[in-house]
């Protein structure tokens, strides 16, 4: 019987790296062997810094751009600290893809609101690239991106490119006090700003990811604006080790975030105990 060791990563070479902010970095990776895998927008993978350990990150690029694999990570703990030391040409491990994904097919013909806060934008990048690469299948696209300060905004150059695509509107905002002298974006919290835009709830999809507090108020705002819970999509994160529903730590109620998630609709979230 030919069974794979589910804990063993494939070897990937770092072919490029880019600092998004002072503590967020994006790595571009290429498999060393013919071991590249197919993924869907929204899935994640486990990234190994050999000698240190593993960390789960969302796959930050779209499957329509599968000649490489990207992840964006924020400097947080042991593994991300070690990952900061990794240079172009170094080898890291990747296993995956894990979890479910955004149901991009059901979004076809609809208007899409991508609402991301801080590093949460990383989870939106893959579906965003996907719909932009299939631009004609989707309606109007609004990207609302917030961060604490101007220097915490990620994917700044890409945002400029996305903004130039027809039917795409970009709004960026920073928390009050986080602006700079030359800041030309908005100042204010993401949910408040979203409400001011008076988005049309009917039939459009909201894809939102960000810190728990932002999601909390976003859901309240969306409810007020009349968005159907089944049209609100977000991604959860919980501490994970295995990535495939065995090790137990991402368990919330009857589901494992790594297996049944990380993508959930607000309708699904409502049924879960608040343990995320």
């Amino acid at each position, binding site marked *: 019987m030919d069974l794979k060791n589910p804990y063993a990563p494939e070897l990937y070479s770092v072919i490029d790296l880019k600092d998004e902010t002072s503590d967020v970095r994006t790595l571009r990776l290429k498999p060393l062997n013919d071991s590249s895998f197919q993924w869907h927008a929204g899935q994640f993978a486990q990234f190994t810094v050999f000698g240190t350990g593993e960390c789960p990150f969302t796959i930050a690029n779209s499957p329509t751009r599968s000649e490489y694999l990207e992840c964006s990570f924020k400097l947080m703990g042991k593994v991300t600290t070690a990952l900061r030391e990794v240079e172009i040409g170094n080898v890291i491990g990747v296993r995956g893809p894990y979890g479910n994904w955004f149901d991009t097919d059901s979004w076809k013909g609809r208007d899409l609101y991508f609402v991301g806060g801080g590093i949460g934008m990383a989870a939106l990048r893959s579906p965003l690239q996907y719909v932009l690469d299939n631009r004609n299948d989707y309606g109007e696209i609004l990207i609302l991106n917030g961060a604490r300060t101007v220097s915490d905004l990620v994917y700044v150059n890409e945002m400029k490119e996305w903004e130039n695509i027809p039917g795409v509107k970009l709004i960026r905002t920073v928390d009050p006090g986080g602006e700079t002298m030359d800041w030309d974006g908005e100042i204010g919290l993401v949910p408040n700003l979203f409400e001011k835009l008076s988005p049309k709830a009917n039939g459009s999809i909201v894809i939102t990811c960000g810190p728990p507090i932002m999601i909390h108020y976003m859901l309240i705002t969306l409810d007020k604006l009349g968005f159907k819970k089944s049209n609100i999509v977000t991604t959860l994160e919980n501490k994970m080790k295995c990535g495939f529903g065995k090790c137990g730590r991402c368990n919330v109620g009857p589901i494992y975030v790594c297996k049944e998630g990380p993508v959930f609709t607000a309708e699904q979230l409502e049924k879960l*105990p608040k343990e995320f």
Partner: protein
Amino acid sequence: MKAFIVEEKNILNWLSKLLQSNIKVYVPKNVEDYSSYEQIEQIEDLVLHQKRPEFSFKNILFPQTESVLEYTIEKNWVKTNPDLNYNSTSEEKTIIFGAPPCDCASIIALNHVFLSEPIDIFYKSKFDNVYIIGLACTNPEPECFCTSVGSSMTSTKGSDIFLTPLSSKSNSGKEYLVEVITTKGMELLKDYELQVQKSNKKITKNAIEEIKRKHDSKYESQILPKKDFTQNNQTLSENFYSKDWEEIGITCFGCGVCAYVCPTCTCYDLVDEYESGCFRRCKNWDSCGFANFTLHASGHNPRPTQIERYRQRILHKFTYFTEQVGMTMCVGCGRCTKFCPVHKDIYEVRSRWI
């Protein structure tokens, strides 16, 4: 599948043949100041009808720590040890003999976790070579409640072969009802012939049931009263926000002993570590009772106190798992109650929401 009556001495002869043929045999055994499943070399080391050991045989299939990846780092290259791949022939045949029904039943829960996709090859290569010979329970402890989780002193769940002692009628020696439950059990009998009673009298289904009923009724009164913990899981999850959990969880130390002695607790950690020139990724036992089990790198903890952690333990065992698999992730062995330093009684807690 198949059943017959066999004298005890014939069973022991059979086991001794197995012992001589390079098969590892583990039995419940007292070791110094504790008891667990220990390997024996000769039949004389076997003591039948012991109390259920303090540790289950979980560690034989799911070791407390196990290397699942080994690698060395060279310049811009990582070499992994290819030996750590699935190989069912690399593991030795192992018999777990004389396990009480509660421990045998744990196999079903363990299998559900480790043999579902993607298969945990480290568990599978061991499981494929493990034969479980259950023995009806004759030594229940005061914390036992197997009848409340759909099991009994003679339940064959999880066993490949199951033995029930008959109440002896004559002086000719003890006899056992031998039930062969799985094809694995059949294999074991075929390869190592068990000398069946001369008469080889056919035993009817009714007779089997009668033997087991008799046995069960003899010991039932020694364990906690039968309740139905397999049903009404909904009631438990509906009480997720009950104030009771505060009172229940507040005394929990978070020591994790409940998970370590539990035959069905499967949560584990993965840690990369270095030892003598080689890095290893270790799969270590873990517990939902530990504070850092769910602690995010950001400092956020979805289960911030022992109250939520203990609730998770109970709900996972009696609601979440039960909804998915149709059985409780608890075999009613009562070990967690026995070893809890604050005597948190899982039976009492579960009984609150029936």
